[in-house]
C-alpha cells in the first residue's frame, strides 16, 4: 500500500512531532474531542474500569465458592455479585470492548480516512455509554440487582426486591451507544474508503467490524424494547409477562435471546477480525482464504439471528421448534470452524515470530476451538437437556467470551499499543502475562465442564460437598487469571512514560495504519493514501519455492 507523502515524517521522534496526543492539552480537549482516536482512548479507560468492577465481582464469587456452604457472603449478596458480574462484563465491557476502542481507533485508519463519518455522534455515543454505566453502577452500589444478567420474568418483573429498573435503564441507555457506533461504522466503511480500497482489499478486521455493526443496529433495538417492556411490567403491571392475567413469561426469553444470542457474536466477531490481523502480521503472510474468512463473518451475522431458541430447549418449547433451532445452531458453527481452519492454514510456510500479540492470537485459536466444540454439546438436543443450566454452560461461554473475545482484545491491544501510544511495552513481560492468562484461564474454566456434566447447576451460592474439589481448582485458577490481567495493566501504564519509542511500524506489518507515524497525527494521514494492492500483501518467496 503506497503513501509516499508521509514517509519523510516517519523517523522524527514522537516527542518533537505534532500528533493526536499532544495536539492539544487539558481535560476539555479530551471531553469535547471529536477525534476518533481520542474517543477510542476515552472508551479504553472506561471499559478498563468496568472490567475491573466485573473482575472484582468474579474474584469475590470464586473466593466464596471455595467452601460448599459459602466462604464469604450470604446467598443474597452472592446473587448480586454474579448479577453485576454478568451485566457489567456483557453490556459494559465485552459488547463495547473491541468495537469501541480498537474499532474506533482503527476503522478510519485502516481504510485510509481522516475520521469516522459522524465524529460528533461518535463522541455522543461515549457520553451515552457513560450515562448508562453510571446508572448501572449507582444501582449496584446502592443495593444491587439479583436477577442475573438475563433478567428472566416473572422473577425480575414481579418478585425481585432489588434495583431492577435502574440497572435495566442503564443497559437500555447504553444500547443506544452501540447503535450509534454501528451506524457510524457502516457509513464510514461504505463512504470513506481511500481511493483504490475496494471491498476485497479491506483488512478482515474491517469485515468483522461491518458484520458486528449490522448486528448492533438490527439487534440492539430489540433488547431496548424488551427492557422497556420489563420496566413497564414492573412499574405498572401491564401483564405482558404475567400468566395470572394472560401474559407469557417465556415471551421475555424469546425477546431477550433474539438480541442476546446475536450479541454473543457482537462479542466474538470483532475478536475474529483482530486474530486475522495478528496471524498475518506475525507469519508475514497473506491470510489463507480471504473471501471465506470475510463471508463467514457475514454468514455468522445473519444466522446468529435465527438460533435464539437453543437457549430454551427445556422450557417446554415444542419439540419441532427445538429441532429447527438445533439444526440452525449446528449451521452457525460451520463458518466459525472455517475461520479456525483458515487461520491455521495461514501459518503454513509462514515466517512466524512469537511476540506477545501472536501468543494471544494462538491462545485464542486454541481456546475458541474448545469453546466452539463444546457448543456442539449444547446444540445437541438430548445432551442439552442434561447440560442446560449447569456449569457446563458457564464453562462453554467463558471459553468463547474470555478465552475468545478477551484474548483477542488483549492481543489486539498489545498489537496496536505502539501505534496508539507511540511506545513499546516490555515484550518479555507481555509474553509472560499471555502465558499466565492462558494457564489461569484453563485452570479456572476446564473444571467447570466436568462440574456441569456431573450436574452442578449454575448460580448456586451453596452447593453439595461432592463438588468442592472442582470448585477449589476453579477458584485457584481464577487467582492465577487475576494476576495475569494485573501484569499488563502495570506495564502498559509504565510504557506510556518509560517505554522506548515504537517507530511507525514496529512489527513490520502491512496495513495503512502502519504507514503513518506513531502516534498518528490528528488527521491520520498527511495525504490520503492511494491503495494499489490486496490486504496483507507481504513479500513472498517466488512461486517455484512452494513445496
Amino acid at each position, binding site marked *: 500500500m503506497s503513501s509516499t507523502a508521509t514517509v519523510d515524517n516517519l523517523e522524527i521522534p514522537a516527542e518533537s512531532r505534532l500528533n493526536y496526543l499532544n495536539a492539544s492539552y487539558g481535560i476539555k480537549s479530551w471531553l469535547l474531542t471529536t477525534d476518533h482516536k481520542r474517543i477510542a482512548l476515552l472508551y479504553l479507560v472506561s471499559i478498563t474500569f468496568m472490567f475491573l468492577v466485573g473482575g472484582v465481582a468474579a474474584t469475590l464469587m470464586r473466593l466464596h465458592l471455595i467452601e460448599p456452604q459459602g466462604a464469604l457472603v450470604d446467598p443474597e449478596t452472592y446473587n448480586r455479585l454474579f448479577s453485576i458480574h454478568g451485566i457489567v462484563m456483557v453490556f459494559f465491557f465485552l459488547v463495547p470492548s473491541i468495537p469501541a476502542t480498537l474499532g474506533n481507533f482503527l476503522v478510519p485508519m485502516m481504510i485510509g480516512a481522516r475520521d469516522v463519518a459522524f465524529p460528533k455522534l461518535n463522541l455522543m455515543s461515549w457520553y451515552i455509554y457513560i450515562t448508562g454505566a453510571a446508572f448501572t453502577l449507582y444501582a449496584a452500589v446502592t443495593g444491587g440487582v439479583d436477577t442475573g444478567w438475563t433478567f428472566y420474568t416473572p422473577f425480575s418483573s414481579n418478585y425481585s426486591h432489588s434495583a431492577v429498573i435502574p440497572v435495566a435503564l442503564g443497559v437500555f441507555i447504553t444500547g443506544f451507544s452501540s447503535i450509534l457506533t454501528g451506524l457510524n461504522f457502516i457509513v464510514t466503511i461504505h463512504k470513506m474508503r481511500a481511493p483504490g480500497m475496494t471491498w476485497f482489499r479491506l483488512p478482515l478486521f474491517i469485515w468483522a467490524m461491518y458484520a458486528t455493526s449490522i448486528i448492533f443496529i438490527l439487534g440492539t433495538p430489540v433488547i431496548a424494547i424488551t427492557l422497556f417492556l420489563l420496566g413497564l411490567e414492573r412499574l405498572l403491571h401491564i401483564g405482558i409477562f404475567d400468566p395470572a392475567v394472560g401474559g407469557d413469561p417465556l415471551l421475555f426469553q424469546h425477546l431477550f435471546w433474539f438480541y442476546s444470542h446475536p450479541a454473543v457474536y457482537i462479542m466474538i466477531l470483532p475478536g475474529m477480525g483482530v486474530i486475522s490481523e495478528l496471524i498475518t502480521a506475525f507469519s508475514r503472510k497473506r491470510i489463507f482464504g480471504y473471501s471465506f474468512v470475510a463471508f463467514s463473518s457475514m454468514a455468522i451475522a445473519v444466522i446468529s439471528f435465527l438460533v435464539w431458541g437453543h437457549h430454551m430447549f427445556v422450557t417446554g418449547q415444542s419439540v419441532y421448534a427445538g429441532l429447527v433451532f438445533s439444526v440452525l445452531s449446528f449451521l452457525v458453527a460451520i463458518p466459525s470452524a472455517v475461520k479456525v481452519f483458515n487461520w491455521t492454514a495461514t501459518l503454513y510456510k*509462514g515466517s512466524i515470530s512469537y511476540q506477545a500479540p501472536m501468543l494471544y492470537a494462538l491462545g485464542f485459536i486454541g481456546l475458541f476451538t474448545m469453546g466452539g466444540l463444546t457448543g*456442539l454439546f449444547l446444540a445437541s438436543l438430548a445432551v442439552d437437556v442434561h447440560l442446560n443450566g449447569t456449569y457446563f454452560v458457564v464453562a462453554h461461554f467463558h471459553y468463547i467470551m474470555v478465552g475468545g473475545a478477551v484474548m483477542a482484545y488483549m492481543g489486539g491491544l498489545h498489537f496496536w499499543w505502539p501505534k496508539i501510544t507511540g511506545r513499546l511495552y516490555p515484550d518479555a513481560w507481555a509474553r509472560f502475562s499471555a502465558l499466565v492468562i492462558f494457564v489461569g484461564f484453563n485452570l479456572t474454566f476446564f473444571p467447570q465442564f466436568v462440574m456441569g456434566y456431573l450436574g452442578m447447576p449454575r448460580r448456586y451460592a451453596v452447593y453439595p460437598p461432592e463438588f468442592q474439589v472442582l470448585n477449589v481448582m476453579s477458584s485457584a485458577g481464577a487467582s492465577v487469571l487475576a494476576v495475569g490481567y494485573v501484569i499488563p495493566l502495570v506495564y502498559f501504564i509504565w510504557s506510556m512514560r518509560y517505554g522506548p519509542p515504537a517507530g511507525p511500524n514496529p512489527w513490520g506489518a502491512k496495513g495503512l495504519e502502519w504507514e503513518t507515524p506513531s502516534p498518528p497525527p490528528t488527521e491520520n494521514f498527511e495525504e490520503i493514501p492511494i491503495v494499489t494492492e490486496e490486504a496483507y500483501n507481504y513479500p513472498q518467496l517466488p512461486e517455484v519455492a512452494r*513445496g
Partner: protein
Amino acid sequence: MTGLLQTGATAMGAVWTAFPELHPPAASSIAQGVDKLYFFLTLITLFFTALIFGTIFYFMIRYRRRKEDELAGGPHEHLPLELTWTIIPTLICVVIFIWASFLYVRNSRPPKASMDIFVIGKQWMWHIEHPEGVREINELHVPVNTPVRIIMTSQDVIHDFYIPAFRVKKDALPGRYTSLWFEATEVGTYHFYCAQYCGTDHSKMIGWVYVMNPTDYAAWLAGGSKTESMADAGEKLFTRYACATCHLSDGSGRGPSLVGLFGKPEKLLTGESRVVDESLLRQAISVPNSVRLSNFPPIMPSYQGQINEEQLLQLISYIKSLGSEERKTSGK
C-alpha cells in the same frame, strides 16, 4: 485415521471407567443413550482440539522465523481444501444433529402406562404430591423400573426440575403445566436440583429422589401421612364449587359432560382440535372462554385466583378419574 480414532475411543473408555467421579450416575432408562452421545461428542472435541493444537505447534516450530529478513511462502487460497473443511464438519454436524434429535424426540414421549406424580415449585421448595394423596417436600419417592411422569407447575417464578442421574430436566412455569418422564433403573438415592435461577435461596431448592423396589414403594406409600387421594380431594372441590350444576354426567347440562372426556380429542370453537389433557383442563378452569366447545354457551366463570395450584391438580385428577373403571364401580 480410523485406527487413531479407535485407539482414542478405547483410551477414553478406559479413563471413563477408571474415574467414576468424572461422570454422574446413570440411573434411568435414557441415561446411557445420552451418555453415548456425550462420549461421542467428547471424542470429536478431543480429536479436533488435538488436530488444531497439534498443527499449530508443528507449524510454530517448523516455520519459526530464523532470520529477520526471511520471506514466507506457501499458497493463500486453495478451493478443494476450503471445501473439505467446510463439508466434513457439516457432515459431522448432520450426524450429531440426527443422533441427538432422535434421542430427544424419543425421550420426550412418555410411555402410555406411566404413573403420574405432581410437582409444584415455589420459592424455595419443591412440593410433591402422589395421586394416592401422599405429599412430600424436597423428597421424591419412586418405584424402580416403572415409567413415571412428572407433571409440574410453579406457584411464582420459573423453576426447573433437574435430576442429573436420570439426565432429565424441565422448567416449571407459572400458569401452565410442563412434564417430563423417566424410568429409574437403579435403586438408590439421587440429587434433584432447581436449575433455573429463582431468587435468594435458589441454591437451597434441592432435594433427593429415592428409587425403591416396588414392594418398598408400596409400603412407603401405605405408611405415608395421606388423608385421601387427589381424585377424592378433587371430588370434594367439585361439589364445593357446584361444578355439577352445569357439568351433568349424562350430557344434558349447560356445560359438557366430563365423564370419559380426558384423553379424547375435542374440536374447539376456534376450529382447533385438541386432546383433552391436564393443560387443556387447567386452561378451561382458569380462563374458560379461551377453550370453548362449539355447542355450549360462554357462561362458565373463571376460577383463577380462587383455586390454588394444589386444588387445581386435585380437580383435574378427579376429572381424569371420571369414566375410569374404579369410579364407575363406586357409583359416581
